[in-house]
């Protein structure tokens, strides 16, 4: 897959970090406003997809990134299990997914106990998954159809 013209490349250089930051904002504020791990994770993936589409794909570097993304995804799923397992541990094996952190007041940034943590973990997982799927479908597809 080739890259696009210089206009698209320059605008991508400026806009991709902004999209990424907005995704982080949506994830972190998931328990206060619309959004959350799923929406934010897809926005993060969109920033990476924009970069891949505009700069074109160089197969070796994308393969290396794919390994990192797989690692991130596995770590995220693991983190979700660890958070829930900690709840199980602290509730002396009675409640899975115990909300073991102080919940704070509704409407503050630091509230909701483990909910923001789970938001972050799920966001990382969705981002890694969708970017990996995109890389596989657009890059390997060229190999397959030739």
């Amino acid at each position: 897959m080739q890259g696009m013209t210089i206009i698209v490349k320059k605008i991508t250089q400026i806009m991709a970090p902004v999209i990424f930051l907005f995704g982080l904002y949506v994830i972190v504020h998931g328990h206060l406003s619309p959004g959350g791990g799923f929406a934010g994770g897809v926005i993060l993936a969109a920033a990476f997809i924009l970069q891949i589409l505009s700069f074109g794909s160089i197969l070796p570097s994308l393969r290396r990134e794919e390994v990192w993304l797989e690692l991130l995804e596995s770590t995220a799923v693991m983190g979700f299990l660890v958070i829930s397992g900690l709840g199980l541990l602290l509730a002396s094996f009675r409640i899975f997914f115990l909300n073991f952190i102080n919940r704070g007041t509704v409407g503050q940034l630091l509230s909701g106990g483990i909910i923001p943590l789970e938001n972050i973990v799920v966001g990382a997982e969705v981002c890694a998954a969708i970017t990996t799927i995109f890389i596989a479908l657009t890059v390997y597809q060229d190999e397959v159809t030739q």
Partner: protein
Amino acid sequence: MEVYLIIVLVLMILGSLYSLNARDLLSAVVSYGIVGFGLVICFLLLQAPDLAIVQVLVEVITLIIMIAVIKNTTRKELFTGYDAKAFVSAIVAVIFTILFFYVFDKMTGVLTGFGQHLTRMSTAYLEGAGVTGSANLVTGVVFDFRAYDTLGEATVLFTAVVGVLTVLRLKGKKKGK
């Protein structure tokens, strides 16, 4: 309110019909986009902003992936006339339609009208903000009341990624050195 929904739904139905009958696969994919973006507007009208955000992004990414898939192919849907299999399929489709209409007719007895609430559990979830400490009640349900569901979702996503890589990767990673 309901009128807007009906207009958007009719548009979605027209888009899906065109999408299924188009000869060029590219125009089929583009008019399939009508259905997805119409769904976004429906979600916004039905007061589900979380879903609207997710749906609009997922729709864009689905369209990009689909266009990337059909870009290098022949793209034309060749029409080679009906055969026996198509005949059987049509009969199956009619039977299924009648069956679904029967079920729908039965179901409408249980359904209340549009806008009147049905599920009894929701009051418990609505008071849940005090329990979970999350101002966004949807996030509260996803990550606290029904966290098992989210765990299952993560597993399914992981499995799907592994499946895509398994199907598509031609050369595996080099073993050893």
